[in-house]
């Protein structure tokens, strides 16, 4: 299924720094497990341009999801600095990080992470509630977001009443409802069959390069090289927490 995004454009003023949406500077994330020190991410430096589609490729345990969590502000680096839209995440308070996750970042999870007790419209409304968007504005924005991912007719349905592909579309609608500049996707097709996964990837591709207006910066974690080569502008391969390879495709 292919859904055309007509007006899901990013805001005109990205507020970036030197044209970079994300900049990671010698970022490390180490864990202690008993006596052992796990270097999940080890001194990675990485720049992502504004509007770029970057695929993080790597085997399981290579550190790609950890890096994504650091960019999302869900986790803090052990050392190094990460800048998103010009702001240093390492120096932000937990409140500021929460605001960053709410306004700057949209996250798409592999396992959807919709709240099963809420309807689709309630799920999509959550980021708006957290952003304290006036109640009068919310219904239109929620409906618009769901219509754009082709779920306009399912607003009252609960996630359990939807297929995997539809749930992932709902997650994309929720991720974009606050119009973030950066979309982070962690194995967005990991739980879907290949055909449905292709539909989701086409949707993400259109978010990246909509028919009109500027696109969004996308960082996608995947272990499927084929998908990465087909949709991404650049592929960065991680191995044992370090960058092992970088390929520019477009």
């Amino acid at each position: 299924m292919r859904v055309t995004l007509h007006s899901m454009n990013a805001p005109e003023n990205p507020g970036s720094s030197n044209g970079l949406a994300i900049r990671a500077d010698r970022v490390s994330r180490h864990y202690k497990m008993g006596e052992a020190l796990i270097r999940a991410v080890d001194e990675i430096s990485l720049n992502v341009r504004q509007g770029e589609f970057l695929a993080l490729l790597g085997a399981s345990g290579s550190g790609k999801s950890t890096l994504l969590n650091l960019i999302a502000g869900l986790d803090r680096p052990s050392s190094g600095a990460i800048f998103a839209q010009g702001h240093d995440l390492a120096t932000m308070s937990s409140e500021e990080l929460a605001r960053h996750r709410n306004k700057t970042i949209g996250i798409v999870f592999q396992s959807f992470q919709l709240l099963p007790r809420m309807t689709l419209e309630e799920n999509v409304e959550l980021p708006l509630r957290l952003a304290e968007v006036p109640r009068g504005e919310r219904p239109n924005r929620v409906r618009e977001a769901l219509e754009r991912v082709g779920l306009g007719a399912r607003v009252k349905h609960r996630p359990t009443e939807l297929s995997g592909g539809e749930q992932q579309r709902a997650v994309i609608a929720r991720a974009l409802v606050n119009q973030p500049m950066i979309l982070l996707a962690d194995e967005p097709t990991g739980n879907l069959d290949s055909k449905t996964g292709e539909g989701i990837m086409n949707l993400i591709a259109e978010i990246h390069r909509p028919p009109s207006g500027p696109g969004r910066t996308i960082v996608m974690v995947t272990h499927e090289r084929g998908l990465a080569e087909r949709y991404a502008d650049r592929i960065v391969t991680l191995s044992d927490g370090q960058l092992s390879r970088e390929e520019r495709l477009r």
Partner: protein
Amino acid sequence: MKVRDLTELAARNLREAILRNSLTTLGIAVGVASLVALLSLGVGLQQLVDRSVAHAGLFDTVSVRQRQGVPFGQPGGGGRLPRDASDLQPPRALDEATRREIAALPNVLEVNPEVRFTAEARREPNSQLVLVSGMAQSSQSSGTLDGLIGHFFTTADAEEAIVQGDLAKRLLPEGQAPASLVGQEIVLRFAQRQALPPPSQQSASDAPNQAVGPDEEAMGFSIVPSEKKFLVVGVTPASDSGGGQIGFNSGGLYLPLSVAEKLQVVQGSDLRDVARTSSGEGQRYSALNIRAASPAAVAQIETSVKQMGFAAFSLIDVTRNLRTFFAVFDLFLGIFGSLALAVASMGIVNTLVMAILERRREIGVLKALGAANRDVRQLFFAEAGVMGFAGGVFGVALGWAIGRVIQFGTAIYLKRQGLNSPNIWTVPWWLVLGAIVFAVLVSLASGIYPASRAARLDPVEALRYE
């Protein structure tokens, strides 16, 4: 997040686990109900006592008596230490001059002598020994004679009597209602005090002795039996129907005070005065009852009277202790009531901790979508607060219902015992509001730990949670 959104989300979350949250809320409700029920009982009992005492006009009355005993420092004074300077002075006589002196004190409305004596009340063929008491006209509005059948004395000098219901029963033929005594005459037979003339006149004159007037000088008096008829104008309710008077002037039969005074009935103080002095010094009273302008003035009047060298007593002293008792009583009731609420608060902690475990992933999602720690904390607080509020409201209603049942049961029990059933149950508005606020505060306090635990959850860990 805005308060309305928080409340909506909290209510939605509570609805999702409706059974568990309802049971927790019910636990709070039971705790609040026990608190309300116990405190309402304490308040009700306190108000019952206050009502009874205030109704009888006892809060604004000071009883004055002559100080007893030998002054400190004189032979027979014992080893007791003096309480105040007045202890060192000889006891003053409670006479007309004293009455006027006391009446001049500030905030004193009236000073009446206490006239009480034992007499035989007769209505053929029955007779009965009875305690007769003089009653001032002001007593009409004091509530002492609540439930009076008939009417109060027509004038201060009317030769009329008000009879207590129990006495009326005994004077009437069996089976007749006490009220039927109203309008009938009864005869009082009592010991009258008659003056003895000075010894010089005593031998020269054969004239009959005259009753001793208040200001007469006399060398002594003789005691003679005397009789007088009185028209019964009122009957007070019998004690078995909740009647029966309490107070400084309680008795089985009441006469207008001035009429009772004029009867010159021998009082206990007469014999004491005869023993104390060789010559009469005019009318002396066994006791004086002061009516104060307000209960607030009682303490000051009491102090002034004591400084004048008399013993003074008011029920303010007793009720002060009574109030202390009820304060402690209410405190204990409150503590016992709160115990149930404390147990219920453990239920809140348990429910919310369970909710954290169940909603771990949801908390992770909320944080990923931009919820700050504060938002998550507030959400759990709101859930605790909603449970506390609902439990508080329901608990107050439940407590009120329990109270009604207790009141109803008590009424049935007292009725079976042949007693009146006073209202022992009061739920004041401050208790309703206080109980709800207390329930919310306890619930919020119970939510502190779960809320901060939820707020501290690592979103990455929480999202990984299956």
